């Protein structure tokens, strides 16, 4: 009989995969020196930024079965905090980052209270609704660019120190945040809190019968997930020096879900792989033809139909069973 995965093992094969991923990320800037450096650096920075959001989404979708179709809103919120503060002369991460986190958390708590009363497709729709509200609000903020968006002239400093000024420096800052996010989520999943979340995903009736008020735990998880995505948005604004309502569009939320599912739900590192696969495929295909979506669309369909469990599912023989 196959033993339950993770039972008593402190470090699993999945951790080796994650380690490999981070080592690769750490080495990319050096390898990039061999080719079109700036382009590769920007591309992988973008991958890592979305990977942070994807990992935060995997926390609630893969482990909590809360399919949020409005996660892009948190990215947008984090980005807008950075942009708005910068436009008022506050360009230090020491202020901007905590504010971004607080704003995202508050939005998550406020909307989560309503959303978590629903289940299934209703939950999907209501998370979408709230992100649309955020989207339209941002579009109407004419002092901050409205539909056209807002340019940020300089990246945030950290206590005065220009820690993200060069693209190389930004790369490692983002990598650091991705590592932190991954480790945080990994610890969360294995903790008592994570166990309640994972249990609720399998059988919420049983959880209530045990004495857990599932709603509260899901709300906290939703808030943490939103906060992390807000960090992702903060970094995105800094990386692109630009903020726009498009960051919060429902298509963006859909793309995040695709990244998580594509990579493999409920593995955390799968979300990173999914983000990388999605963004790189997008870039690569767009290089071939302007009609690359006609290839990408069917590709998605094929992956869903034939590669259950995403890319990780395909690799499951090597990487080991789900970390649960």
């Amino acid at each position, binding site marked *: *009989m*196959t033993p339950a995965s*993770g039972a008593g093992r402190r470090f699993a094969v999945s951790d080796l995969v994650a380690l490999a991923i981070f080592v690769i990320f750490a080495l990319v800037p050096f390898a990039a020196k061999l080719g079109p450096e700036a382009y590769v650096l920007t591309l992988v920075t973008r991958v890592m930024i979305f990977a942070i959001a994807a990992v935060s989404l995997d926390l609630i979708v893969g482990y909590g079965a809360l399919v949020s179709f409005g996660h892009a809103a948190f990215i947008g919120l984090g980005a807008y905090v950075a942009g708005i503060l910068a436009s008022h002369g506050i360009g230090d991460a020491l202020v901007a980052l905590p504010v971004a986190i607080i704003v995202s958390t508050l939005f998550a708590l406020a909307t989560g209270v309503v959303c978590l009363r629903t289940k299934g497709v209703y939950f999907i729709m209501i998370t979408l609704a709230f992100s649309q509200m955020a989207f339209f609000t941002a579009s109407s903020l004419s002092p901050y660019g409205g539909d056209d968006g807002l340019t940020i002239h300089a990246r945030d400093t950290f206590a005065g120190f220009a820690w993200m000024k060069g693209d190389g420096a930004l790369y490692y800052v983002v990598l650091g945040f991705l590592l932190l996010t991954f480790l945080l989520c990994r610890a969360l999943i294995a903790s008592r809190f994570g166990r309640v979340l*994972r249990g609720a995903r*399998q059988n919420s009736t049983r959880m*209530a019968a*045990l*004495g*857990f008020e599932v709603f509260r735990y899901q709300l906290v998880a939703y808030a943490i997930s939103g906060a992390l995505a807000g960090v992702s948005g903060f970094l995105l604004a800094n990386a692109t020096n630009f903020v726009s309502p498009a960051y919060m569009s429902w298509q963006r939320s859909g793309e995040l879900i695709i990244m998580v599912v594509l990579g493999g739900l409920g593995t955390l590192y799968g979300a990173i792989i999914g983000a990388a696969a999605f963004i790189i495929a997008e870039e690569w295909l767009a290089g071939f033809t302007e009609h690359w979506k006609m290839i990408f669309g069917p590709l998605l369909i094929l992956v869903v139909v034939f590669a259950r469990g995403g890319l990780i599912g395909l690799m499951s023989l090597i990487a080991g069973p789900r970390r649960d």
Partner: protein
Amino acid sequence: MTEPVLRLENLRKRFGGLLVTDDVTLDVVPGELHAIIGPNGAGKTTLINQISGTLSSDAGRILFAGQDITALPVHARAQCGIARSFQITSILPEFSALENVALAVQAHAGTSYRFFGRAQDEAALNEPALAALRETGLAERAHIRAAHLSHGERRALELAIALAMQPKLLLLDEPMAGTSHEETERLIAVLRRLKGRFPIMLIEHDMTAVFALADRISVLIYGRILASGKPEVVRADPQVVAAYLGESME
């Protein structure tokens, strides 16, 4: 006359035009095993659902240790000490048997808002969990995924989970449902050992189990309590024999 742990007063529940629980008044006193029997459709599971909080009653009161819990939600009642097992097995299929029970221990062992520290390594959770598994004969299967357990083992797991909650009242909804003869014998032995430790309300169809274990029996027919009292008395009650036990005696 000892103060009852559980007291149902004039409980009523309707589903549309159907009165499923009809003015039910009964109690469970400390240390006893009180069995509820009755034909299918009599409303036994509905009754348990009202006690555990899954269903709200239309009228009547539920008192637990003297406290009126009629308005409390499911999780609050569980926190008070009411543990229930389900007629249709309700476990966490992806967790191991041990983790299923450890989670039940966790529910009553301090806060679960702990974000760091591996829950799987906590001896404070694993020890009591293993003890409960040993009680129900599942110690060897502790690390097997719940989904891979046999039906009888899962019924035993349901019981282990309820035990691990340190219940002040145990509600068992047909724990022998669908189990083989051997597994039924085993469960009866377990329940015999547990008797007296805490009050148990047992819903069962298996008459051997009921008459082997019950201190008191209440007979539920069409949502009403037809008879209630010591097994020998109920067994001999002509109304009960006619309505229910007549054919299926022994």
